């Protein structure tokens, strides 16, 4: 996909000046329906992580493998990345079926993990053997960077063991349909439960991007699941055992079950959300600004399009609403393929015309096309990956006058003022933290207790309240003085002052409304991670697949290490 020297020169020319095509406006992008239609792109965090691991020629070594014939015990994998060593410490234990739940309320798991900073000693391993399986209840230290756990996919794990143990490969349709051997049910970083704060890795460029250590952990866990299933099968019948075929192994990602905890993150980190969105939209605008698409990029796009069509054909879910969207998407993808004639492709501004043409299709299709258009343009857009981190906290501007604040609200936050919170349905829901293992939950304000403890995710409503409160204040008054008397507005005042210059910081929808689908927020965030095969279990909960098609430990050094968007599992060779 590198293209010719002419291609590269042309791309550099485009990159050197601002995109001709403007970025899509936040009123279009920052809507839940669209965010809930996002797909992973080459800027997604897993993709950029694997690219850097590949570039660094990182090698994973397995220094400890103390796993018994039934698959229980411990293992350690280490990788040197950015000059530092990180080690996944994995524990596998027997799990009572009654305790098998993907939710935060779980107390036990099939497997538990920490990502250790450096190489653990025997004493570290003995300590972690006690604490890691306890997860949230364990005691950790600053050498533990990430804490995680995963449960087996009962549908697939046993089948793969049974198959390999008798020298057969597992059923390819099952591999394609399920796609993982285990599901992670939580991946904690940044100081949670006493593990190391993010501050510890701030000066490590290799891993200080968004969720890089968490996603490194998940990639290492995926490798452990491959080794574990092969080990159990081999121990069952060493003579007949055959290892996983390499293409099947590569197609086995790692599952994840995700609930409401992800949604407040987007609201509580507005500048970070803006950074992610801005990078994505800038990349899209750069590509759409290309006047003459090179034959190489067109070919690469068409290859991706064909692969994505097969990927979408494989994407089956039980959720009726999402399955309807997938069926629509499949029909629309046929139309895209029909549109892509040689004559049409040869006209100027191909990518911008394709974007314009996509307006007739679903948002799911439009966002898929965005991902596909970005795919062959790595040289033009990959630099944006390094701009997706932000540790900026909202800061108050105390000298701003009330008049200036009012103008700011009226001009920049008109979308919030336009929301109607008068109807009961518009405030039906409230977000809260349950006392039960601090599980994030959603309640009905008019039927359930607890609304007085709701999380402050109602940004638009808070903006309206602030606007009403300053209406009676003198315009020359300063914000510091106003907040001295009205500290209840401190948080939202600080927020609007900070996010006013960050147009992609706020979700421009009502998060309290009866028709709000939190799963749209989950999909948005997970797409930035690089997740695929969204499999909603309700409006609040989804399963996903991570690292499907990504290189395994052994394949990391191969030339196609970055070529795993929209993976498909082919027929047996």
């Amino acid at each position: 996909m590198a293209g010719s020297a002419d291609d590269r020169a042309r791309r550099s020319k485009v990159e050197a000046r601002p995109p001709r095509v403007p970025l899509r406006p936040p009123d279009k992008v920052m809507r839940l329906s669209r965010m809930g239609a996002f797909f992973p792109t080459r800027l997604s965090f897993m993709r950029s992580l694997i690219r850097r691991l590949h570039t660094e020629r990182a090698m994973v070594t397995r220094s400890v493998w103390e796993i018994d014939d039934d698959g229980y015990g411990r293992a350690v994998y280490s990788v040197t990345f950015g000059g530092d060593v990180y080690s996944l410490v994995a524990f596998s234990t027997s799990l009572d079926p009654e305790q098998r739940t993907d939710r935060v309320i779980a107390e036990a798991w099939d497997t538990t993990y920490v990502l250790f900073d450096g190489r653990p000693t025997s004493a570290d391993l003995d300590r972690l053997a006690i604490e890691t399986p306890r997860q949230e209840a364990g005691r950790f230290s600053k050498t533990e960077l990430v804490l995680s756990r995963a449960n087996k996919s009962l549908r697939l794990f046993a089948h793969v063991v049974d198959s390999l143990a008798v020298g057969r490969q597992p059923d390819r349709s099952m591999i394609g349909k399920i796609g993982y051997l285990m599901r992670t049910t939580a991946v904690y970083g940044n100081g949670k439960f006493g593990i190391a704060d993010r501050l510890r890795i701030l000066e490590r460029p290799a891993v200080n991007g968004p969720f890089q250590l968490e996603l490194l952990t998940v990639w290492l866990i995926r490798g452990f699941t491959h080794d574990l299933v092969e080990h159990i099968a081999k121990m069952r019948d060493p003579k007949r055992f055959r290892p996983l075929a390499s293409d099947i192994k590569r197609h086995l990602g790692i599952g994840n079950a995700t609930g409401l905890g992800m949604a407040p993150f987007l609201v509580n980190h507005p500048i970070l959300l803006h950074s992610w969105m801005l990078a994505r939209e800038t990349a899209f605008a750069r590509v759409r600004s290309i006047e003459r698409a090179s034959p190489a990029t067109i070919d690469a796009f068409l290859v991706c399009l064909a692969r994505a069509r097969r990927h979408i054909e494989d994407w089956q879910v039980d959720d009726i609403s999402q399955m309807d969207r997938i069926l629509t998407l499949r029909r629309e993808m046929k139309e895209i393929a029909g549109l892509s004639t040689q004559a049409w492709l040869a006209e100027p501004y191909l990518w911008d015309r394709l974007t314009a043409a996509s307006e007739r299709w679903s948002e799911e299709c439009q966002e898929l096309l965005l991902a596909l258009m970005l795919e062959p343009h790595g040289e033009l857009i990959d630099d944006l990956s390094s701009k997706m981190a932000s540790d900026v906290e909202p800061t108050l501007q105390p000298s701003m006058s009330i008049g200036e604040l009012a103008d700011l609200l009226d001009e920049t936050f008109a979308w919030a003022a336009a929301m109607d919170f008068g109807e009961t349905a518009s405030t039906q829901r409230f977000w809260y933290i349950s006392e039960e293992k601090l599980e994030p939950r959603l309640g009905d304000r008019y039927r359930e207790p607890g609304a007085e403890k709701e999380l402050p995710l109602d940004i638009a409503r808070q903006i309206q309240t602030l606007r009403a409160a300053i209406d009676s204040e003198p315009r020359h008054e300063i914000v510091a003085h106003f907040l001295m008397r009205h500290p209840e507005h401190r948080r939202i005042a600080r927020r609007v002052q900070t996010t006013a210059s960050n147009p992609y910081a706020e979700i421009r929808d009502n998060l309290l409304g009866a028709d709000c689908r939190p799963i749209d927020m989950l999909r948005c965030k997970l797409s930035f991670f690089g997740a695929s095969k969204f499999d909603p279990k309700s409006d609040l909960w989804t399963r996903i697949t991570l690292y499907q098609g990504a290189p395994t430990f052994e394949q990391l050094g191969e030339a196609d290490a970055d070529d795993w968007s929209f993976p498909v599992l082919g027929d047996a060779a």
Partner: protein
Amino acid sequence: MIVSVNQIEATIAKAAWGRGWPHGLAEECGRAAAWLSTRGFDGVRTALAAIEPGPAEPLIDETTDAIVFGAAQAIHAAPSAYDLLAADIGLERVVLQEIDQPLLVIGFGGMAALAYQSCYRLTFAEGCRVIVDGSAVSIAGTLPPSGAEAVIEAEGAGEEGTPAVLTDMEIDGSLWHDALTMAAESYVASSLSSRKFGAGAGIIDDD
């Protein structure tokens, strides 16, 4: 026990919110407690003591060159004091009388110094003098107990500072238990219904 910066910030913020402090002040209280803790002070204890009674109606007296907070609750009065001094409106000083937790006022000063890239001088009526910027604090004399009066003045531009200094923050187990108990006041009690429907997922995953 050892706790992380993130745990201190989050737990103290939840404790403050659970006790009725506004979200904005609660969050900043968490950061102030963490700022103090990472610099060797007992940030958690002083924050919990300030949080515990909940917010009271502030007593504020304004003159042309000073603002005076009577019966000053650090969680409310300190951030306001630093905001007002940072606003550059000709205000020379802010006076906090009968401060409930003088140490916490310093913690908020550290956070304000980071945010506003400034430096502050606190002069306590009992003679103790404190200079705080985003990185560190210097205390001349003995920090007075609750009930003290302090004059806060801007001391000019501060250094950029560091957000926090990593340390092994050893916290007394019973104190941390108190913090978690107070934080739990921000949680909603679980019910069979909320357990079943509130998270949008079933209880058992057997596939």
